[in-house]
């Protein structure tokens, strides 16, 4: 029994790390602009699909992954420049709806630029499972967890030790004061979109070897990342990570011990429960739920 429990925990942590990266993307953009970017899931899709198509075209995997993340970052910047910035005077709800429209557009473009088939990425370091106390772990899962830890550390350094990072935090605390101090809110928005897109794409590249990628995986992943972000407290970085891991674990344990057919239900039950009982999420800071 306990080997099975370990198996569920390992699976939950792997999937949870992906949700955490997506949730971080939500948090960063939310912090800079109070906008919930529903196109976040599409960045994950772009990362995975771009990497898969580069690998299929013959590029080595590390280069393909790098180009995919860079490409997604450009898409994120373009999204901000072309869709969000022109509407910057509009109410936040309008901006949120714009991101929903953008996500539909990105999905459609993806199906044209690539195709609607399912693609797989080769695993980064092989597929021989490792044995951990009776449970098995794919080496790819270690990559996912390791990359997430590294990313979180880099982000912490970025937000606390660099000027641009601190500027983003300043805007999230008080936009007017930040503007008065000479911080360009426009640039901060641009950077936060680019950063979130890169995070999403990274998650897409990491998970593609395990669970394949296709033009429409963005919807579910985006929604689950959003659920994780709400659970942890929208706008809170640590909350996003805790929320992501928690959601992954709940899903895995629920599928294992309750019912495997309703795995997706857990994420959405959490959104509902969080909105009703814990509107400020576990980290309890922002009032994101007014917007929702």
């Amino acid at each position: 029994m306990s080997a099975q429990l370990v198996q569920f925990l390992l699976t939950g942590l792997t999937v949870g790390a992906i949700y955490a990266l997506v949730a971080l993307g939500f948090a960063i953009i939310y912090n800079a602009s109070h906008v919930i970017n529903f196109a976040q899931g599409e960045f994950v899709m772009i990362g995975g699909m771009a990497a898969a198509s580069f690998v299929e075209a013959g590029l080595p995997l590390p280069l393909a992954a790098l180009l995919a993340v860079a490409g997604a970052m450009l898409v994120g910047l373009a999204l901000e420049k072309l869709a969000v910035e022109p509407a910057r005077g509009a109410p936040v709800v309008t901006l949120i709806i714009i991101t929903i429209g953008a996500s539909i557009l990105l999905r459609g473009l993806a199906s044209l630029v690539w195709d609607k088939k399912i693609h797989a990425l080769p695993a980064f370091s092989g597929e021989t499972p490792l044995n951990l106390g009776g449970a098995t772990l794919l080496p790819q899962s270690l990559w996912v967890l390791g990359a997430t830890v590294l990313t979180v550390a880099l982000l912490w350094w970025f937000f606390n030790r660099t000027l641009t990072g601190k500027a983003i935090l300043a805007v999230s605390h008080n936009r007017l004061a930040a503007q008065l101090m000479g911080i360009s809110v426009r640039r901060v928005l641009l950077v936060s979109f680019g950063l979130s897109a890169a995070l999403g794409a990274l998650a897409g590249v990491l998970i593609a070897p395990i669970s394949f990628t296709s033009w429409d995986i963005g919807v579910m992943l985006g929604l689950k990342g959003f659920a994780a972000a709400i659970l942890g407290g929208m706008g809170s970085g640590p909350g996003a990570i805790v929320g992501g891991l928690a959601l992954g674990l709940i899903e895995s344990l629920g599928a294992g011990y309750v019912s495997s057919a309703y795995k997706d239900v857990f994420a959405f039950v959490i959104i509902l429960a969080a909105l009703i009982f814990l509107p400020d999420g576990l980290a309890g800071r922002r009032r994101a739920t007014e917007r929702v």
Partner: protein
Amino acid sequence: MLSRTLLAAASLAFACAASAQEPIRVGAFLSVTGPAAFLGDPEQKTLELYVEKLNAAGGVLGRKLQLIAYDSAGDAEKARAFTKRLIEQDNVDFIVGGSTTGETMAVVPLIEQAGMPFISLAGAVVIVEPVKKWVFKTPHSDRQACERIFVDMKARGTTKIALISGPGGFDKSMRAQCMGVAKNYGIEILADEAYGAGDTDMTAQLSKIKNTAGVQAVLNCGFGQGPAIVTKNYKQLGISQPFYQSHGVASKGYIQLAGDAAEGVRLPAAALLVAETLPDSDPQKKVVLGYKREYEARFKSDVSTFGGHAYDGLMIAVEALKKAGSTDKAKVRDAIESVRGLMGTAGAFNFSPTDHVGLDVSGLRMLEIRKGDWTLAK
């Protein structure tokens, strides 16, 4: 007066000639994209290839064939919308299509109402049981697949198995069929797990199966992306029991996605996949080898049983048209029911008023995947 008569005669002659030249419209809705893309894509290619070939050989009943095909992407709603369009706007003479069970069942009411001969390319037995007047199908039914698998299991002394299935119409139908006929082969089902659409990880379900004592083999009822992930997880968890899939994965696309994990997986499938290795005395060899060579030469990609189903569907319809001598829908329908001994890629078809699939289990061979390719299981 004479000139008017001449004019009338000329236009009448012209009209007759025009209607004689009117093409026979073949309607199709297929899952070319989406989760069932490796079913619908070869199906569409096959229909295009053979409509072209038939036209090059002079057409059917002296008329050319015109293929009108739509992509329903595995979505029952789209399937209904396209079927309506085929019936009402495109005025097709018959429909070959419905890559998945879900889509096929969704359009059956439209088909029955319009009185349109329909040959489905989907798997579940529910499509033809109870027999529906206008609905036929070409793949072996899921029950036949279950029976073929159980025959193999029994021969290997397997008596206790676990099932894992997905959410699709075919998955659920095959699961129900397998549970229904298991007793006839002395097979007991110890565990029964399910996964959802778009699930990316089935280790939880497989873990439960792994920890169920006494399981000698595992059977996955499904098609599309799900079985590929189940197969990868199966290998990851190091489950050593034999792993059986359904004929829903009989395509190279599955092997590509599942990678090394597909090694050793067994599945019932049409002889088409191992056409070259069939003995010359095999009655199916000529047809399956011919189709395989033509498809691979034209499309430079491996043949799959799904394209074979489309080939069978088209050939049955053409045979029925010839027998009926016209495109009158009721006559064509009756003619399909009277088709006997037509050798297709799935086997010899013998339709009757009570049998709208016309195949027996002999056309299903037990295959095993070795080194990324199909082989006949020993």
